[in-house]
């Protein structure tokens, strides 16, 4: 502790993005299996991810800081045994993203750069908030997964977590805001009952969903979002990785909800 980290391993996509965005990319020696951004990180060795961290490889690389996910208790225990310092991260709300950037910057010893990055993200978010202020807030359902070609096993954002916070900041009212969970499994009856004005589907990439698959929603014709053709597909990694690109993601959300405000 206290000493600047020079050899950092980050196996979580969002923290890898944070480290590179704050200019500490040259200190990162290995990343996780699913860390697809930024491009300059892609040549680094990959040492597993959430469920399959390669502990042996991690220890062998002699890092002086390992960024792990909060639920990786077994990995943390083994790092402790090896006397290796780690930073435990977990997805929470929108505000936690910038506080994580600052905390991580302190651990790596680039406080000023981290603070600059966090402040920039905060400014961008404040700008979006200002643009959509005083506009009607459509009741929005944020869907991030379902069985392909059908409306089965719909996963939507509940009233907690960064997706919920992003939606509320982008000028939408969360259709599941009263359910205090990050993720809600929805039935078709729940979608009909909640009657959202807008349905936004988020996917990490174009490949993760077929555009024609959006027609599945047409079965629920009584839902205002379907009736008024406000079922929107947004794709991009920034929607599933709560990192420094969160402001871009929020901006896209806001532009989808309030196209007039972003002309």
């Amino acid at each position, binding site marked *: 502790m206290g000493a600047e980290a020079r050899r950092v391993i980050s196996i979580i996509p969002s923290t890898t993005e944070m480290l590179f965005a704050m200019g500490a990319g040259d200190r990162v020696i290995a990343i996780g299996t*699913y860390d697809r951004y930024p491009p300059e990180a892609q040549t680094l060795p990959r040492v597993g*991810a*959430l*469920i*399959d961290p390669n502990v042996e490889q991690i220890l062998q690389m002699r890092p002086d800081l390992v960024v792990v996910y909060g639920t990786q208790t077994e990995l943390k225990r083994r790092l402790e045994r090896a006397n290796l310092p780690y930073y435990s991260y977990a997805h929470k709300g929108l505000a936690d993203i910038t506080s994580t950037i600052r905390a991580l910057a302190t651990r790596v010893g680039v406080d000023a750069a981290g603070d600059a990055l966090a402040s920039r993200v905060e400014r961008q978010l404040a700008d979006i908030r200002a643009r959509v202020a005083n506009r009607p807030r459509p009741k929005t359902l944020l869907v991030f*997964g379902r*069985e*392909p*070609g*059908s*409306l*089965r*096993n719909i*996963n939507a954002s509940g009233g907690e977590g960064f997706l919920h916070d992003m939606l509320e900041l982008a000028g939408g009212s969360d259709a599941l805001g*009263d*359910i205090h*969970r990050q993720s*809600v*499994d*929805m*039935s*078709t*009856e*729940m979608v*009909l*009952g909640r*009657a959202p004005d807008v349905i936004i589907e988020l996917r*990490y990439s174009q*490949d*993760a*969903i*077929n555009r*024609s*698959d959006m027609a599945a929603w047409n*079965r*629920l*014709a*009584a839902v205002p979002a379907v*009736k008024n053709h406000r079922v929107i597909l947004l794709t991009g990694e920034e929607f*599933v990785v709560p990192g420094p690109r969160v402001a871009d993601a929020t901006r896209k959300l806001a532009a989808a909800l309030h196209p007039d405000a972003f002309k």
Partner: protein
Amino acid sequence: MRRRLALTLAGFGALTVASCLLAPLVGSTSIHLSRVFDRSIPFADNVDAQVFFVARLPRVAAAAIVGAALALAGVVFQALLRNPLASPDTLGVAAGATLGAMLGLTAHADFTLVGVSVVPLTSFAGAVGALAIVFVIAAARRRGTSSTVLLLAGIAIGALLNAAGRFIQYLADVTDTFRTVQWLMGSLDVGSYAPILASLVPFGLACIGFATLPRVLDLISLGEDAAEARGVDVVRTERIALVSASLSTGAAVSLGGPVFFVGIIVPHIVRLIVGADHRLVLPASALFGASFLIACDLVARTIIAPVEMPVGIITAIIGGPFFLWLLFRGR
């Protein structure tokens, strides 16, 4: 006998009809029947009608089919293998269906066949594929296969297919793994009638097979040699039973996911009520399986409203204690 059959069918039939009529009326949103059937409101604008016809009715129908199909398959597997622990899951059919579903979920493919989406299709293909393997093993021995060999072969194939499934899951993205876990919990919210109609084809074929079985299953449960001595063609019966039970299981799993507990527990509950005669057990299990799963799904979608519980959890929570109570009552 005819009187007992009529009485059994009437009793369990009434239960099924009652659950089919009551279940669509209850749910997490409140609807008014007068609005549901109000023809003056266009369907596209009638939320109550859509909740009733798009969300609830297909769900009740799916529960009825899945419950009946798994219960029938359970009865047949238990009789055929002469093992009270046999279930639709025993011969690897379920593992095949699960492997198929995983492939469908991780491939990110999006195609439909007669209105049925990719995951039900691949899981049905997996079930039929597993059946084919078991069938080849059963047919490899000319004079039928002893139930123990069949059982062990089924377990081995199940383990193999499960391992393949785990390997795919291990290679897959975390989100795909999450979707698989979700699929494994079972869901009857099919959202349209196409998959229900599609499942009726294999289920209908299976029922034709089941219809030939009651008497011979009674004889087979006494032992294969005894059955053969009384003129039963054991090999043929075994094949019909295997194919029918597997088609039935495949139809059920592709529609509702792996809620196999229904297939173990319902036949036993029914036998405790009507006795061991398969002429009674088969139809009664179908009817009771249907009403049991409709009731479980009703609980699943209302008990922790506004959110829902996976139906697979409810079948075990309700079925387990109920079964124990039946076992120990009156002792």
